[in-house]
């Protein structure tokens, strides 16, 4: 198996003050450019796992490494830097700063990450062109690029968020229930655009959802309850 982009080993995580582990995962790997569909029922710890993958939370024991760098080896500020350099993040909703234009929202990671800014420059485009490229890649018309984010529809906002996650081509895009606010048609269009954009950016995608109908679009499907030994233990105990 090739060296993974994202490697997780013997991870155990419990929320502070909680007697039980929330997550207990033996191993999980994501290769560069791979698309992974992570599913599980509500409250099974999907968002917590994403926070661990993005180095927002640190596990009590075990390793989570992104691009060969173990999150736990970095200080808080270095984690912030490593995250913005290598991870694009899409939330369920409310992804954007409402007072910035769509384009300014897309360019935010380039303001904080030199690496993402330089990656954009390598495409021999100006920063704005790069932002517009990904907006167009997510099927957004030029007429909305300069509009304030709060005037956009929810579907448009999610596309802007996806463009922002991809700008500067980070190795990993994490999407936390990005389609839950969209109806079925828009969900399918959004996923088509997102998957082809990730392919173009050569970014791996880890997408979390409880909606298994979309699973077949992904390279791999992972069920969190199946790999989470803590959930099995809780169920066995019950």
């Amino acid at each position, binding site marked *: 198996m090739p060296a993974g982009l994202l490697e997780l080993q013997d991870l155990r995580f419990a929320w502070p003050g909680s007697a039980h582990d929330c997550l207990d995962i033996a191993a999980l790997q994501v290769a560069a450019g791979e698309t992974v569909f992570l599913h599980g029922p509500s409250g099974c710890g999907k968002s917590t796992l994403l926070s661990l993958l*993005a180095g927002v*939370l640190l596990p009590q024991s075990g390793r989570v490494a992104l691009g060969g760098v173990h999150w736990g080896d970095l200080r808080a*500020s270095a984690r912030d*830097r490593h995250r913005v350099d290598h991870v694009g993040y899409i*939330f369920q909703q*409310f*992804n954007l*700063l*409402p*007072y910035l234009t769509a384009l300014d929202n897309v360019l935010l990671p380039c303001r904080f990450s030199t690496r993402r800014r330089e990656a954009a420059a390598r495409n021999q485009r100006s920063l704005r062109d790069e932002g517009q490229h990904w907006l167009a890649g997510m099927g957004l018309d030029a007429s909305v690029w300069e509009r304030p984010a709060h005037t956009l529809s929810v579907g448009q906002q999610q596309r802007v968020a996806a463009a922002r996650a991809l700008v500067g081509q980070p190795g990993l895009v994490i999407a936390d229930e990005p389609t839950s606010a969209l109806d079925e048609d828009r969900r399918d269009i959004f996923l088509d655009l997102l998957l082809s954009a990730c392919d173009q950016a050569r970014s791996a995608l880890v997408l979390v959802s409880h909606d298994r109908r979309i699973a077949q679009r992904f390279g791999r499907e992972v069920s969190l309850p199946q790999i989470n030994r803590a959930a099995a233990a809780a169920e066995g105990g019950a």
Partner: protein
Amino acid sequence: MKAGFLLGLAWRSAWNRRFTLALTVCSIALSTFMLLGMERVRTDLRSSFSSAVSGTDLIVGARTGSTQLLLYAVFHVGAATNNIRWSSVEALQKLRGVAWVVPLSLGDSHQGFPVLGTTPAYFDHFRYGEQQPLTLREGRRFADLYDVVIGAELAERLGYRLGQRITLAHGMGEVQLGGDHADKPFTITGILARTGTPVDRTAHISLEALEAIHVDWTVGAPLPGRRIDAEQARAMDLTPRSVTAALVGLHNRAAVFSVQRQVNGFGAEPLMSILPGVALDELWDVVGAGEKALLLMSGLVALVSMAGLMSVILAGLNERRRELAVLRAVGAGPQHVLALLALEGMLLTLAGIALGIVALVAGVVASNPWLQANFGLTLHLGQTTPLQWLLLAGLLVAGWLASLLPGWRAYRLSLADGLSPRI
């Protein structure tokens, strides 16, 4: 790299919440207005107060309280219980060390403005502020019996010009109890330049004129059946019989206590003399307690508005958790979040202070005529005091600190929330 970007972001974020923040800015503006305004009023009150008379070594009057003597001799407020005889004034002149004596006679008024009977020497010797002499803006001193020289404020308020004829009323106050001296009108021959002292509100006539308008009066009322017209009065002996008080200047200030002793032990009638500076300080001590209370009050207003600033930012924090989480997700570190909130606090405080200063300038410009007319007080915007700068700096620091606390909380929240705020 990001300082400019963060500033722009802070500005746009604040603009997005401008209606809530406007309230905070207004409350900071109010406390700036209160603090600086109070300090301005206090300073100018004190300086206009202590500049009311200078260059006079002693004020002499009948025995009374020193504050009372100061009030009627300098501020033309209140009334003397007793007058001093003209012979005493003449005797004062002959005391060793006395350079000049300017008698003052009060008791009449014109439309509520006090009338002062004095000698032409008044214009030579009276000083105010930093030893500044009186100057005539227009016209000349009184020369004829029925000439009057008016102060700048009086001229402005009543719209008087040179050559206009006015009549004086008996007694003080706008309600004329006694009656008037309509039979002996005065001609305005001079208008004094503004001094910012009670002189501005005073009509000056000669002692003889004051005598003339009262020749056919006795104990505060016209003598029935006896009318002496203005021209007849000219022929009479108009040497005053008594005056209210006298300003005394010495050849050598060092002699002031010896002259004071001589006056206080004057044989012919009971007199007292006061040092104007000492009496002014005594009077200010009485007024000063209120002034400190005002300063304390405006300090409390500032405190309340800082608490308001803090609570508005704190209350807004929950709705901003998403915004902060988005920023964290796109790579902003907690230090950026903290910087953003501190910048916002600084912007708010600066805007509030600027607004407060603008309001103060506008307020002072608008209210100066009214203050001058009603209180004889002119506020000087240009003259800043060290305390004013200190207050400004204090407001800035306090406002900024008040915004740091919510900033710190946001920092903690954004650390705890990670990338997905639990709202």
